[in-house]
């Protein structure tokens, strides 16, 4: 019986010839990522070692990555103290894949991992963040876990009791119309599958549209796979994966690819034709409350956000800057831009996008999660509405349960910033 990509990766990592959906395996972990919640992981990790007489050291420091992004720079003494504690742990354990609060090497965890070549096709990647599904964009089997499970991985080097998930095959064909992109595609897929339609399953992406898509677009798609409940989203590695890892991440060693067998077993196949896709909007307060833009155009918005691990990359900023260039953000609307990494910020500066945003009246902020999780900047006022390129619109997500968040692509966000209402970029 043939295997899907997830099955092949798990079989390899568990030292087995073959596995099938439903099997329980203990895969070795190739990369274990945490952000500020490493503070909690450290607590749990020390508790594991408590009373064992063994020194509390991580199993392999070269496979542990820690990136500060959720609250950078720290918004409170509590966060600052957590970050300080993590720095000390990083130093004591010799963890080199550590990205502190810096303008050059800092950024959002899900951007840093691909950008620095930490993720490779065929890897098992775990992260204490639900959007760890992102790294399937490079052909890895990558999924989110809790802090205690990470403490277990740091201790053992493998994940215990992993059920091999079933896989849904998503086949995407057609050429995207102008101003329609990866974000619209994944919003459309989530709307179709629902927020729990892929629970406990993998989404494996195929089709001509995916093959033609840049790694940046694939990242957006895999990033949001979790919003349909998926354990992981995977684009099987191909020439584009190799190009990205060589050209962007500077990887020089071998890059073996893992592809599914022709007779791999899928629980379901979903076919999507994007050639007539409209820009898509996820409406409050559920990510699967997805409507074509025509249904909500004209809705007044007070805050526009462009950024996050979903849509804060250079091509996202390029599209938005292109729409805003020479225009002004509407009075009564504020616009916040936060590039996904320091490197992207520098590139956006060199290309003049940052200047375009600022001249239009947008505020360009340091790389990090920023308003995406509403913790320390960009919170909304009571009854305010945000239109954001981020990935979640749960009640209270942008810091205020009495506000509303709509999700969209960078093109829609930029076009709407100029008018102050949800605007179809194709009518610009």
């Amino acid at each position, binding site marked *: 019986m043939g295997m899907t990509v997830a099955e092949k990766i798990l079989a390899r990592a568990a030292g087995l010839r073959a596995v099938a959906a439903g099997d*329980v395996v203990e895969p070795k972990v190739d990369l274990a990522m945490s952000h*500020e*919640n490493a*503070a*909690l992981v450290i*607590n*749990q990790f020390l*508790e*594991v*070692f*408590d*009373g*064992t007489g*063994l020194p509390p050291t991580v199993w392999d420091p070269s496979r542990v990555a820690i990136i500060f992004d*959720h*609250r950078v720079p720290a918004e*409170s003494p*509590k*966060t600052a103290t*957590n970050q300080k504690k993590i720095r000390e742990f990083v130093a004591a354990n010799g963890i080199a894949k550590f990205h502190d609060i810096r303008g050059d090497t800092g950024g959002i965890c899900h951007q840093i991992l691909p950008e620095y070549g930490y993720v490779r096709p065929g890897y098992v990647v775990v*992260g*204490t*963040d*639900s959007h*760890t599904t992102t790294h399937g964009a490079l052909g890895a089997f990558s999924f*989110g*876990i*809790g*802090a*205690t*499970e990470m*403490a*277990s991985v740091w*201790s*053992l080097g493998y994940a*215990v*009791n992993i*059920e091999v998930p079933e896989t849904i095959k998503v086949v995407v064909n057609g050429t995207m119309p102008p101003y329609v992109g990866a974000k619209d595609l994944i919003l459309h897929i989530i709307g179709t599958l629902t*927020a*729990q339609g892929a*629970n*406990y399953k993998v989404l494996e992406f195929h089709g001509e549209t995916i093959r033609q898509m840049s790694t940046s677009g694939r990242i957006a798609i895999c990033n949001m796979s979790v919003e349909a*409940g998926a*354990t992981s989203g995977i684009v099987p590695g191909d020439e584009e994966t190799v190009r990205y890892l060589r050209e962007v991440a500077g990887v020089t060693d071998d890059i073996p690819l893992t592809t599914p067998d022709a007779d791999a077993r899928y629980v379901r196949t979903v076919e999507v034709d994007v050639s007539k896709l409209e820009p898509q909007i996820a409406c409050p307060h*559920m990510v699967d409350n997805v409507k074509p833009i025509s249904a909500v155009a004209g809705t007044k918005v007070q805050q526009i956000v462009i950024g996050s691990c979903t849509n804060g990359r250079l091509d996202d900023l390029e599209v938005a800057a292109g729409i805003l260039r020479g225009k002004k953000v509407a009075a009564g609307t504020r616009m916040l831009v936060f590039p996904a990494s320091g490197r992207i910020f520098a590139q956006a500066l060199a290309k003049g996008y940052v200047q375009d945003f600022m001249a239009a009246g947008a505020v360009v902020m340091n790389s990090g999660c920023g308003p995406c*999780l*509403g*913790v*320390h900047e960009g919170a909304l006022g009571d009854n305010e509405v945000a239109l954001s390129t981020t990935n*979640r619109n*749960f*009640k*209270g*997500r942008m*810091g205020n*349960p009495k506000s509303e968040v709509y999700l969209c692509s960078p093109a829609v966000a930029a076009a709407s910033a100029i008018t102050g209402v949800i605007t179809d970029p194709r009518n610009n």
Partner: protein
Amino acid sequence: MAKVIIALGNDISTDDIYPGRYMATVLPTETPQFAFADRTDFNARLKAREFPAGSIIVGGENFGCGSSREQACSTLKGYEVVVVAKSISRIFLQNSINLGLKVVLCPALEASEGDELDLTDDTVINRTTGKQFAQVQMPAARKGIMDAGGLIPYTRALLKVRR
């Protein structure tokens, strides 16, 4: 028999259970104060603690969807409640098992606030309505962690053998 102290609908997210702005608080002794912080009536009801251990929070489909934050489990565990839901998102379910928050999967469940439920090994009996619903059993692998008392003792035992 235990009483349903809170009954919720579908897609209750971890932002609902434990809003992101409290994520810098990590200690299981400190997280319970922020349970359902944005639903002030639930938060007050829990904090009043006028219910015995083992009282029930009922969830619909996809309970605990969203973030991987473990505080969403520790915040409920602090009140020694049992979560009985129609379905539970993957990370929340795994976190519950890892931390020892008792969760029961019951796809056809019908229960309202104030109902009295009996949780047997494989059914949920609603004593108030007289209806009975089947539970979905946890996979054997997960039971191992539950039997060990959570993932920390489970890992500690493995560590001694394999390191």
